[in-house]
């Protein structure tokens, strides 16, 4: 969509306060195109505020932020054409069927053949079978995947996922991880926020740790590991994690995320 080759997201000195609370206190960030970038932080660290500014829903108080070389404050309308936001709670229409949700999005993006695009996305996110059923009957993981699929209807080059797996069971989480990997494999830039360390570790090319409105550290997992003293070798009897036990018993790994279930830690 964009012809330039700068970074997908660039943030400099970003500040935002609500009343007398400084939520963002000078954030810098650089996200390369086609990468998965995780913003890791506890509740209240400012993750959602940052994502809302980047997706033009909130104006920043100070500093600049660009998405695909477009300033989010001054060229909000163009930015909206290059991004999609998946918020913390699945913003899907439960009364409609999955397919109808996607057709609606395709119509709003003014695509030539909304029905065809909807079917394509249902296929891509392994939702084709449930596509004709009302979303109210779907599981949490399926809704999340539909939510992400809806965000991708207009094929935006940059996707924001705000805590995409919060509130999901392990199965649903693996389904969403599979969807995110599929996205990145297709060249989409993904910025996701999470409070789960494991999620950042498993998914992200680079990780930034956001704490009280500032980026504490930033880098690849290896770089972050190098910040701490060298590993001491201890002998520990390897017990299966509860997650491994759960998934082994439940069994039906989702096809697109199954191979990661055995990774352990």
């Amino acid at each position: 969509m964009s012809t330039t080759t700068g970074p997908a997201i660039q943030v400099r000195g970003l500040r935002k306060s609500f009343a007398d609370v400084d939520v963002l206190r000078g954030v810098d960030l650089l996200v390369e195109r086609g990468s998965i970038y995780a913003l890791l932080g506890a509740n209240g660290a400012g993750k959602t505020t940052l994502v809302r500014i980047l997706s033009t829903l909130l104006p920043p108080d100070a500093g600049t932020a660009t998405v695909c070389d477009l300033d989010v404050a001054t060229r909000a309308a163009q930015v909206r054409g290059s991004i999609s936001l998946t918020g913390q709670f699945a913003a899907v229409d439960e009364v409609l069927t999955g397919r109808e949700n996607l057709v609606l999005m395709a119509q709003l993006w003014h695509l030539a053949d909304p029905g065809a695009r909807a079917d394509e996305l249902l296929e891509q996110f392994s939702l084709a079978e449930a596509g004709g059923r009302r979303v109210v009957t779907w599981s949490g993981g399926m809704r999340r995947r539909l939510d992400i699929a809806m965000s991708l209807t207009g094929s935006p080059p940059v996707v924001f996922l705000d805590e995409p797996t919060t509130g999901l069971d392990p199965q649903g989480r693996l389904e969403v991880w599979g969807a995110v990997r599929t996205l990145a494999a297709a060249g989409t830039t993904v910025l996701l926020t999470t409070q789960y360390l494991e999620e950042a570790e498993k998914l992200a090319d680079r990780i930034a740790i956001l704490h009280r409105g500032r980026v504490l550290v930033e880098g690849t997992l290896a770089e972050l590991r190098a910040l701490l003293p060298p590993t001491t070798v201890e002998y520990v009897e390897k017990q299966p994690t509860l997650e491994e036990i759960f998934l082994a018993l439940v069994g039906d790994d989702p096809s697109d995320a199954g191979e990661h279930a055995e990774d352990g830690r």
Partner: protein
Amino acid sequence: MSTHTLHETAALTRRSLRHVLRSPDTVVTTAVMPIAFLLLFVYVFGGAIQAGAGAVAAGSVPGTSYVDYLLPGILLITVATGLAYTAYRLFTDLQGGIVERLRSMPISRAPVLWAHVLTSLAATLVSLAVVVVAALLMGFRSPAGPLAWLAVTGILLLVTLALTWWAVVAGLSARSLDGATAFSYPLIFLPFLSSAFVPTATMPGPVRWFAEHQPVTPVVDSLRALLSGQPVGAEIWVALAWCAGVLVLGQAGAVLLFRRRVG
């Protein structure tokens, strides 16, 4: 409006009409209370009301029955009950993140609101039709011609549109689902303090003054005149002025709130 905006409005209106179609109970519930009022007032209180205020109430036009007298007020109550669902649908969209999702998309802002307004008009029209059919079964008869019916429909749509903006205000400003729908209660009650059920002449001083100066009375009187094939007097201008005032204020408030809340 650009063709893009029209296209977006159409897509979002289709969506919210689907909500109405898939929960036909909302249309039915909207009609149930007005029909219950009809039954109650025609078959339970009707006799007493006619005995007490007889000559003035039912006798204003010879040959009309109390259900004929009652229907205009009942139709306004139908509009008010239906609006609770408009506020409800908007509120759940805001809560469920649908509005947030639409905001982050490259579409205009107006269609998000207009889809709800158009759906409100359509759903209310269906509920009104259901109530009219019920009234017909209970003996309602009207000598009104097509033009008069058109005028009745037009007035009811104008009232619905004017009050829909207040439903939008309620949906946008509410903190809870109950808060979103509570605004319709006073609207449902207002016809009782008007000429909808009994002539205002039967009421004591202050109540009568209120009844004669509140908007329901001129609207009800105009609808009644149209439905009974009588010439419409100056009250129609009072009614239209009230509607216009309520509409302009409500729309201004709704758009202001929408901008502040949704941007």
